[in-house]
């Protein structure tokens, strides 16, 4: 599978996750979201950028429980809870946000 952004084609896996991490740009993330009928707001980007930083540091995409806890620690309790994160990413905060962040699907996600 692949996704086309501004005339450039990017390879993805069968679930739409970017094949090559280094291909990612914010435009690619936005295009992936648009394909899911999701418009990315600042609140979305806050989570996406957090995930990219987490990956940069630990080389893994965190499971949703870990993401929720870590967001709470960094951005505050009002954001580090399932309700808030599922409102932003109804298909599952870790799964969906990782996709737009150009990261692999989180380990332990089915």
């Amino acid at each position: 599978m692949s996704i086309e952004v501004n005339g450039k084609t990017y390879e993805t896996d069968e679930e739409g996750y970017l094949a090559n991490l280094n291909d990612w740009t914010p435009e690619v993330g936005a295009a992936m979201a648009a394909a899911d009928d999701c418009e990315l707001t600042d609140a979305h980007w806050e989570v996406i950028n957090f995930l990219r930083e987490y990956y940069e540091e630990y080389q893994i995409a965190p499971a949703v429980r870990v993401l929720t806890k870590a967001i709470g620690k960094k951005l505050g309790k009002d954001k580090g809870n399932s309700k808030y994160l599922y409102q932003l990413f109804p298909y599952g905060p870790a799964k969906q946000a990782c996709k737009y962040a150009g990261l692999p699907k989180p380990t332990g996600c089915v």
Partner: protein
Amino acid sequence: MSEENDGKKFMFVNRRAPYGTIYAQESLEVVLIAAALEQDVSLLFIDDGVFQLTKGQNTEGVGMKNFSPAYAALGDYDVSKLYVEKESLEERGLTLDDLQHLTWEDEDDDWAEKDSIRLISRDEVKKLIEEQDVLLSF
């Protein structure tokens, strides 16, 4: 959390060098999956497995991803028991200072930061293995 869990005790036994084979990376992957499913998970590093935890790994020459930063995420996954056999370290000329400083935060102790790596002797390894319900060897 793991102490309250009355599920099975899982121990992942790591005894090979981190690169050259895929065992170490695969082990870590399964550990993360088990931890995401909130199982009582501990890791044991013996023989060349102790090299998995060394700091300053650089894989540029071997063409494999340096996955060692992920060990530092184990605390986030509530994996707080990383047992390292003292004799294995000594036989390889290593000390605790050669390993990453890995920590976890204890929810029951006002989130105090505690060390995850516990040095144990060969005799203690035997005892520990006997206490497990499930052993997975990599």
